[in-house]
């Protein structure tokens, strides 16, 4: 499959700390790419760089062959790259549907009239099974509902590449099952998903391919089962003695 998103030699340093060092990856439509690694290994920073939340120091990001490295966050959304946040984010005092509507109106989808945006947003909330909460204030929703609303917001902008930052973490076993099937349905729709995750059940169940990061660099890449047995990966997580 031809790659949809390609990242070449991306680098980001915060002062003396190199958070992301010479990272390259590619992901194809319908593929779920897992991004794992110990805490502080630069996974979230890499997502921030791809989404445009942070600017990279060097390297290139190509979306469908087009260089988007110089584009600010909101224009990358229109180039159909979107994300969710590790700590769920949405306007706390607005009704849940409001952010989704903003996504419909400002995202990469067809231009919709303002009064029709609510209906389309309701459709996205329905797809995420939270339509009944549409007019609740966001901060009054439960954790899993907030996560689903946030995903609806991301989907409303019609992404072709979706970056999920620990979207499956902190869920109960039954919620996790539901969450996994949601991510499956995204991939089945042809969206390229990059998943930062600590929940290994989800990684094994979902990912076609896994990239392991440690201290800002890639240390392994391949199918989940093979990679999780890799000696260097075990060392990165557990230290030298257990390898």
């Amino acid at each position: 499959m031809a790659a949809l998103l390609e990242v070449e030699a991306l680098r980001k340093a915060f002062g003396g700390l190199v958070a992301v060092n010479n990272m390259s990856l590619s992901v194809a439509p319908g593929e779920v790419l897992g991004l794992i690694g110990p805490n502080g290994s630069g996974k979230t920073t890499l997502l921030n760089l791809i989404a445009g939340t942070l600017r990279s120091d060097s390297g290139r990001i190509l979306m469908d062959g087009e260089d988007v490295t110089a584009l600010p966050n909101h224009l990358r959304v229109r180039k159909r790259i979107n994300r969710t946040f590790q700590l769920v984010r949405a306007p706390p005092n607005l009704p849940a549907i409001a952010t989704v509507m903003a996504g419909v109106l400002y995202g990469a989808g067809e231009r919709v009239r303002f009064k029709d945006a609510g209906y389309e947003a309701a459709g996205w909330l329905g797809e995420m099974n939270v339509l009944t909460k549409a007019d609740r204030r966001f901060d009054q929703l439960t954790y899993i509902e907030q996560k689903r609303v946030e995903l609806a917001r991301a989907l409303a902008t019609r992404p072709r590449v979706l970056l999920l930052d620990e979207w499956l973490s902190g869920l109960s076993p039954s919620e996790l099952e539901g969450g996994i099937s949601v991510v499956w349905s995204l991939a089945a729709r042809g969206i390229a998903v990059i998943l930062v995750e600590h929940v290994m059940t989800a990684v094994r169940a979902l990912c076609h391919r896994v990239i392991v990061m440690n201290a800002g660099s890639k240390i392994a890449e391949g199918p989940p089962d093979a990679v999780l047995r890799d000696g260097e990966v075990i060392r990165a997580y557990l230290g030298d003695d257990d390898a």
Partner: protein
Amino acid sequence: MTETSEDKRIRRKRAAAAVGALAMLVAMLAALPWLVSDYSLSLLLNLICYLVLTIAWALFSGTTRLVSLATSAFYGVGMYTVAMLIKVLPLYAAFAVAIGAGAVLALIVGVLTLRISGMFFVIFSFGLSEMMRELMVWWEINQTHTMGRYVYVDFSTTKIYEHMLGLGVLVFLVGWLLRRSRFGLALLVIGEDETVARQVGINVPFAKVAIFIVSAMFMTLSGALMAPRFGFINPNFAFNPLVSFQVVIMAILGGLQQLWGPVLGVIPLIVLSEQLQTEFPFWYSVFLGLVFMVIVYFLPRGLTGLLEDGWAALGRPLDLPRGFSGPLRDAWALLSRPISLPRGIAGAIEDRWIKIMPRLTEKR
């Protein structure tokens, strides 16, 4: 899925009712100059002027939640531009130049302040107003050797009032449209969380500067319209910082949830300021400060919030598990409790302050 015909019918009906009511109100207000005394007319003019300023302030600050104290800067630029140009340009041309000057100033300030937020923006906007005032004082003294300007022009209070009323209708319409538009929704999202706003594809800096300019143009024009009202204008009068403070207090007294909120804030304060300024001129600022404290402490959502709560309470059944005497007994128990001040009065104040602080710093 799109709007059904039933939805459309209801929406049209509501819109028609609102437009009808507004048109009647405006027609009544427009007829007032022929019915009331000169004194009442100048009071009304003052009222409408503050209404324009307050709604214009809410366009920017109510949505983006950046508290601006730059109102007097724009109001002053409008007023002083007209005062300076009145001898060389026709009145309407002077108005046009004033709006242009306000828009350019707003553009510059907007671009400069994009990256500052919260408390820093408040200070910056206040600094801007004071800088404009000092700059004009300096210019007039050192360059033109005047202390102020005479504005003699044939533009009666009635005419100013009618123009200001038109401006009021316009700013109200802009606010109304903003609540039903893509751009207005974008501003609300920006006000709550800029990171999310960017992540839905909103061009945040552009939106903030754009609404700042729109808001500033209304403030500038209202200042420009008021210029012919006063025979003599000096920089200290035009750029009076009290204007900025009053506008903020009026807006939050009224409440920012509803478009008509500022009306509830402007009317009582203007009427009271009129009374107080004539009878106890020095007490007005004290009173304004007290109003501000009362709002922050008891009415965080303003009078409209109070009305909304009252309305909601009317629809709820009374909840008195211990009968009507229950609340009375509670109040009595509270009053008859002995006063205990283990850490003295200062300690009690400190405890109180710790409770109030979060409310003062809370994002509205």
